[in-house]
């Protein structure tokens, strides 16, 4: 039986932290060490992840400040106030495009991963489709439920990552981590770019802070949310280099996944530990691609006010599926990742500068004035 008058569902400040953290921790973590090791010497990459993380923290702080200046206002409404409606719609469209690409990219990557390690006979399309259907099922529920889902999965994610870090610790060789601080400036800049890309998931605060009733702590929670992956990324990178050394990491497609294969769990209870961690990876990818999907839906419902949510979902999902099927091989996927990294970073910095300056010029307007 339905509620008589279902109250509008709000989320808490703290939910933002979980959402940000689980959105940032995505499939990117699996190949991040490869990109970083590519440009750096030995374990110097941690420095670039640190730099990338700090930049992400600053950007995230700005973004959350901008969004929480307009409590209970959707992105479209405060963006139209700041930069006029047509520009706001163009921004929305760009974000929709970006999130659709992210969502389909994540789905494709998990299919690649399972194809690589779990079953090579099942066609990749079936794997993708099954995953997409689950994402659609989640997206068709309420938005607050998506946040609850993030919170429910968060212990699994953190627990899995902690296991991933602890089990291979015995295989770490100190000589792999040496020498230190040998990387040149160019390598550091390139490495930082790759790392920063891995942190970009915080951009969701721009759209989700409007769901918080009183976003007093939203900024703090965003920063905390970025800190979780920040620590995990650095530690996982160091462990990864420590186990494999820079050269090997550089040449493994999913170095972090290989890491879980290195594990010899006590008593060999399960022959392959990586399959346990595969559960965690699926969940990690699921939350990221779900949030990306949901933001695309959210923005589309803002632009096309009279269209039903389900219609939008049903239009979006085939598009995402086709996009996910588009690249034919690893090389293409790699190229796409590179393009995505540069465009996303440029775009988010552009948005922060644009909205930030306009906010400084125009000041805040409350909900009633608009």
């Amino acid at each position, binding site marked *: *039986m339905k509620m008589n008058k279902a109250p509008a569902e709000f989320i808490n400040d703290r939910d933002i932290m979980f959402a940000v953290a689980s959105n940032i921790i995505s499939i990117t973590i699996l190949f991040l060490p490869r990109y970083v090791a590519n440009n750096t010497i030995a374990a110097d990459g941690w420095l670039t992840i640190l730099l990338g993380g700090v930049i992400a923290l600053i950007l995230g702080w700005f973004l959350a400040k901008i969004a929480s200046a307009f409590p209970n206002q959707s992105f479209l409404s405060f963006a139209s106030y700041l930069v006029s409606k047509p520009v706001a719609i163009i921004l929305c469209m760009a974000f929709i495009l970006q999130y659709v690409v992210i969502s389909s990219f994540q789905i494709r990557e998990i299919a690649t991963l399972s194809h690589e390690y779990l*079953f090579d006979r099942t066609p990749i399309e079936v794997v993708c489709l099954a995953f997409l259907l689950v994402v659609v099922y989640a997206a068709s529920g309420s938005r607050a*439920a*998506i946040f609850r*889902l*993030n919170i429910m999965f968060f212990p699994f994610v953190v627990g899995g990552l902690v296991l991933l870090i602890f089990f291979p610790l015995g295989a770490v060789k100190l000589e792999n981590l040496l020498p230190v601080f040998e990387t040149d400036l160019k390598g550091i800049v390139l490495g930082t770019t790759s790392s920063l890309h891995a942190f970009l998931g915080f951009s969701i605060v721009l759209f989700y802070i409007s769901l918080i009733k009183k976003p007093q702590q939203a900024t703090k929670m965003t920063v905390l949310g970025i800190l979780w992956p920040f620590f995990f990324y650095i530690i996982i990178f160091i462990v990864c280099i420590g186990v494999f050394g820079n050269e090997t990491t550089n040449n493994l497609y999913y170095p972090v996944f290989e890491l879980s294969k290195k594990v010899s769990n006590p008593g060999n209870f399960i022959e392959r530990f990586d399959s346990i961690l595969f559960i965690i990876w699926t969940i990690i990818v*699921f939350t990221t691609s779900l949030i990306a999907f949901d933001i695309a839906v959210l923005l589309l419902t803002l632009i096309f006010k009279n269209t039903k949510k389900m219609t939008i979902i049903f239009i979006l999902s085939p598009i995402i599926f086709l996009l996910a099927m588009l690249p034919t091989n690893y090389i293409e996927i790699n190229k796409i990742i590179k393009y995505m990294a540069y465009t996303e970073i440029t775009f988010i910095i552009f948005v922060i500068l644009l909205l930030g300056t306009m906010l400084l010029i125009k000041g805040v307007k409350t909900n009633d004035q608009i």
Partner: protein
Amino acid sequence: MSRSSNEPIHLEKNLEMNVETIKKTLGNSADLIVRKSSIGMIENQFAMMYLKGLVDDDQVNNNILRILELNKKDITTNLLDAVYDEMIALTEIKKSPELDSIIKALLNGDTAVLLSDENQAILLGTSGGEFRSIEEPQSESVIRGSRSGFVENLKFNLALLRRELKNPNLRIDFMEIGKHSNQKMAICYIEGHAKPEIVDEVVRRLKTVDIDFSPDSGFVEQWIEDSNLSPFPQILDTERPDRVAYNLLRGKIGIIVEGSPFALLMPITIGDSLKTIEDYNQRWMISTMLRLLRFVSFYMTLFLPALYVALVSYHPELIPTQLLFTIAASREGVPFPSLIEALIIALFYEILQEAGTRLPRKIGQTIGIVGGIVIGEIAVQAGIVTPLMVIAISLTAIAAFTLPNYSLAIGLRVMRFGAIFAATILGLYGIILVFIMIHIHLANLKSIGIPYSAPFAPNYLGDLKNVIIRAPITTLTKQQTQPFLEPAEEVEKTNGGSGTS
């Protein structure tokens, strides 16, 4: 109810006519007893009516009939008032001129006294008769804890609850359900502990209930639950008064339906279905272990057979090598794929379980022996299934019984088939997707508007110490009400004593 569209019928000033009207309404039923006699010095006629078997005979004879008959005094005041106020030695007494309410009272086991030249009937609460005595709850037995369970009688049940909770703020509101059965239903909550909005919502939903008869509270539960497509029970049923009392203090609302020994508790979360009241009676470390065990059982019930199917048919490389050899050897003679094997055994088990519940107790033992042999040995020897599959399925069955709520356990047993099919199609990956889907469903599910996945999500760290683990009792007493059920501060202050609904 059938006359509800017309004007309510009132009694006349004529005794004979009134008796006839009531008799006619009840169709001259054989169990309707009418006793006529006279009262007072001037011999005022009166008639006493009741339904045999529904009343307490002692009370009717000693406290009503004898007093009225033996009274030969001169009554100077109004006869009705004299009888009503002075003579009858019963505590429950009412007056009513309406035929409908008199009939309803008679059907409830009350006695109606009609006086000559009066258009009102006196209704006396004499309901009694034979009832099942209070016994140990069958579906929720405990080793350490109270032995009393609810019975079919609403009065007894409410008394049991009052005995547990001697709190003046305990509110009990009556409602009626069942077009034909006219059963009473009690809505219990504690003022200041329960959220008024939730109480209102429950009452609103109960008002929409439109059924002829509710043999058990399960009818009410299914009518008012949030989602009838969910395998998870969104309303908790319990036979234990102590569990109801504890949960009322936690801010929940209880519903007790006449004729049902199962009380309903709402709103609940997934954690509530995994708790037993015995957790609080044992020392905290033991209870904590048991709670963790139940979480393990929860996932085991859902995924163990599926996991076996996935491992055997998709990922044999994940099984330790020696075990793999054993499995391969035992699967040698089995003609079916592991899906069919799992389905056969699961079906066997479900049939046995159903037969075990329905059969008379004396034959039940036979079923146990036959089932044990058929499933355990012969099926394996005959080469239909592998021993490991038998282990997987029977472990699931046993794991399901560690869950303290039967409604939850049978829901999980249904979902387990879904997991088996997913494992057949997509192996481990399929199981993970089912795992995610179940959590999506849990996140979307609500119980009377409260997220079912609380206190995990929305996250209330403080309450988790009473869900995942059972922290020492000294740390649990500080906060009684669950955080998501806590009423707003002002409401509690301004509305402290008076009822809301």
